């Protein structure tokens, strides 16, 4: 039997390939970029979207879940929105088109990613992370724009940078290579919004390198519409003594896959992941994380909090790999879930792969309803049940927001959370 035989394509697969074919003369890129695109789309055509038989997609059968892909509409218009926190420098990308209004602060160089595609400098970065990297494949094939940021050595930014992705409908595929120089200090907010209830599909890849001794906070706030598909990926590479605090809030979307793939490349690197997934309605949200502790003496902690209402499905897959010589690695991962509906679903797969013998690695995962003793405690003090529940749910997630050492930011995020909870709880 010929195993190479092409699969029978689903409507979504056909739509993705058609989107590529339709734009083929129009997609930016030099020869090298176009050849990478061709390969990626060809792979998509022959292998199809991943199914649950692909281990990293075990709980998100993209082939079945991705029903149809909306067509891109070049005339669509989306408006710029207010910054999440005042004072932030906003770089706005609307329906896939980057807008350079707003002055970049000192030390920050900004360039259109479309230009990098055109001159070919983006070609190497388009490579997928592995055969199961469906997001990298879709995005690499169809990416049209985005921003390239580079923060000069020693730059310390007082106010956050906000990369704002606003989508009204259709498709958008964007990419954000960002390099933080040595000893930089910055907060970046990557915000995904939709302006209306129309269906849209976006894929977005942020590819960041953190230089020696840099201290970076990166926030991903995903608030897309209830009909939207969000395929997000963030890749990172940490140099010696670099610190990255990655904070992800998912509070929207119908089909969401947020991937986080990183590695530590220098001793003393420290990674912190905090994730809050607020899941309701009929949504399916998958947060998949891999971290390679590749060198000795690096640390990481990951805390994921899921709150699942209605008929929502939540997935967390986390994999920590400790390479052979990465002695003295200290990695701790926790995934806690409040499952608040009998029609909801939560699957967690916290994996460890360890090849070094002098390390400390641990993981914990819990799934439960609200603690009834806590509920009782509050109700005994005269707080009505629904309010007491809301308080406990809020406390469950707010706890990790407070870890952010930036008051306006904490307030802004807390308000996002409480607005969401008011609507769903």
């Amino acid at each position: 039997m010929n195993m190479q035989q092409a699969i029978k394509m689903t409507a979504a697969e056909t739509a993705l390939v058609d989107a590529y074919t339709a734009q083929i003369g129009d997609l930016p890129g030099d020869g090298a970029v176009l050849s990478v695109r061709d390969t990626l789309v060809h792979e998509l055509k022959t292998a199809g979207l991943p199914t649950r038989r692909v281990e990293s997609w075990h709980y998100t059968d993209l082939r079945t879940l991705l029903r149809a892909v909306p067509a891109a509409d070049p005339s669509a218009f989306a408006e710029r929105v207010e910054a999440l926190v005042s004072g932030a420098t906003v770089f706005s990308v609307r329906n896939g088109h980057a807008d350079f209004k707003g002055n970049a602060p000192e030390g920050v160089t900004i360039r259109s990613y479309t230009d990098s595609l055109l001159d070919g400098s983006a070609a190497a970065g388009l490579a997928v992370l592995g055969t199961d990297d469906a997001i990298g494949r879709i995005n690499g094939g169809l990416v049209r724009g985005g921003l390239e940021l580079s923060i000069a050595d020693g730059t310390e930014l007082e106010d956050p940078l906000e990369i704002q992705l606003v989508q009204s409908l259709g498709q958008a595929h964007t990419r954000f290579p960002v390099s933080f120089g040595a000893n930089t200090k910055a907060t970046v907010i990557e915000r995904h919004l939709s302006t209306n209830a129309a269906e849209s599909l976006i894929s977005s890849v942020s590819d960041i390198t953190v230089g020696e001794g840099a201290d970076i906070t990166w926030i991903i706030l995903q608030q897309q519409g209830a009909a939207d598909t969000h395929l997000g990926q963030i890749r990172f590479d940490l140099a010696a003594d670099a610190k990255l605090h990655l904070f992800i809030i998912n509070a929207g979307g119908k089909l969401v896959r947020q991937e986080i793939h990183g590695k530590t490349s220098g001793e003393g690197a420290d990674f912190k992941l905090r994730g809050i997934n607020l899941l309701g309605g009929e949504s399916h949200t998958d947060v998949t994380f891999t971290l390679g502790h590749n060198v000795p003496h690096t640390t990481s902690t990951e805390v994921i909090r899921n709150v699942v209402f209605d008929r929502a499905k939540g997935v967390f897959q986390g994999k920590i790999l400790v390479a052979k010589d990465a002695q003295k690695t200290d990695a701790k991962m926790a995934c806690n879930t409040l499952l608040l509906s009998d029609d909801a679903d939560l699957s967690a797969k916290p994996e460890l792969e360890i090849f070094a013998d002098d390390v400390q690695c641990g993981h914990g995962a819990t799934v439960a309803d609200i603690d009834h003793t806590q509920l009782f405690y509050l109700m005994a003090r005269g707080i009505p049940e629904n309010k007491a529940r809301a308080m406990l749910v809020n406390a469950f997630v707010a706890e990790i927001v407070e870890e952010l050492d930036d008051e306006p930011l904490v307030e802004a995020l807390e308000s996002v959370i409480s607005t969401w909870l008011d609507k769903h709880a």
Partner: protein
Amino acid sequence: MPAVQETIDQVRQIDVDQYKYGFETTIEVEKAPKGLSEDIIRFISAKKNEPEWMLEWRLDAYRRWLTMEEPTWARVNYPKIDFNDLYYYAAPKGTTGPKSLDEVDPEILKVYEKLGIPLKEQEMLAGVQKSKIAVDAVFDSVSVVTTFKEELKKAGVIFMSISEAIREHPDLIKKYLGTVVPTTDNYYATLNSAVFTDGSFVFVPKGVRCPMELSTYFRINEKNTGQFERTLIIAEDNAYVSYLEGCTAPQRDENQLHAAVVELIALDDAEIKYSTVQNWYPGDKDGKGGIYNFVTKRGDCRGKNSKISWTQVETGSAITWKYPSCILRGDGSRGEFYSIAVSNGHQQIDSGTKMIHLGKNTSSRIVSKGIAAGVSENTYRGQVSAHRKAENARNFTQCDSLLIGDKCGAHTVPYIEAKNSTAQFEHEATTSKISEDQLFYCLQRGIPTEAAIALIVNGFVKEVIQELPMEFAVEAQKLIGISLEGSVG
């Protein structure tokens, strides 16, 4: 924290080049021709004097197997197995089934003597053993003897080889065989359903507490043979049985296949305790030879408040692919899995459990400890799931792994799936969270924290292992004593 010296020494004692059971016995055997075909299955079935329906059952499984593909998801690597290059039936000449002890070939008896398995009832009664243990001895493809059958019969317990049971208790077999692990379950289980040769059958009727430990000892002796064991244990309402199996094989350069299926069925308020000491030949220090152990073990807590508990000490086999599971179907049922898996040399272990919560108020507990040394790979793979209607499902999972040396790998792959909001699942990889109450109790009595933790975690396992009749019990106990110090999640 690296492993402590004491642990390193203990693991070294059971390293692959220390394998004590690698001797080979020359016995005249009768074999089926090499290869696998419908004719071979007819041959096996005829050898076992099986009724027609059993043969059909096997052939169905075989036809399905032909359409299946070998699973590749486990974290194990091995060259492709040529299923046509194996003998599927090998029996000591003249044996067609278990007989009385006097009729058994003295050479075979010597084997069991050498392995430290008590087959002589008198000896056991004479106080050689502390407690009575009934043994079913399976040698290659046949059961050579089953002890204490008469005494068990008086209590109403049926303990015999599965081949005998198919002839003598066809109704029970028809009613239960394949109901927990269907013939279509997975590649190896389907293969097993087609070609299984022997194994044990246990039936404990309503209200009976089995008066002694039951045990089966599996020995592969013949070259190039696969052993396909099939075990079926049924505990009716309010019954209790404790069963243990042990396994060894000679030291050989080529790999041999052991593909077993074990099915447990616990009805209302019944309890089955199943322990395994798996000590198949692990291959030599260069990774040559060893048993491929591809096993499907599953227990079905069919009745309310039933309980199934799996305990395993895994030290042998070149490759282990084994997930003793519990289907918690009955309301209030309970599943337990306690495992110690030690891999040395080039061994590869991918083992764990599945706890499938279906009924209301079901609970399960998983304690797994993996120790990897040499250039081995040790993976814990487990699934805990609560279905929509599994109200108040509870699970506690703890898996620790320990690495000795920097050439081996330890992996943890838990799958946690909750579909009911009243489910409460805890997956722990740290040592600090085991029952605070018990810990407090020990500390209060002056036992230091670490000793207390070891005591508590290992307490469950110890209780079963101390009763093991085999020589191996000594080593097993040492393993249990291994300090938790230096363990990683």
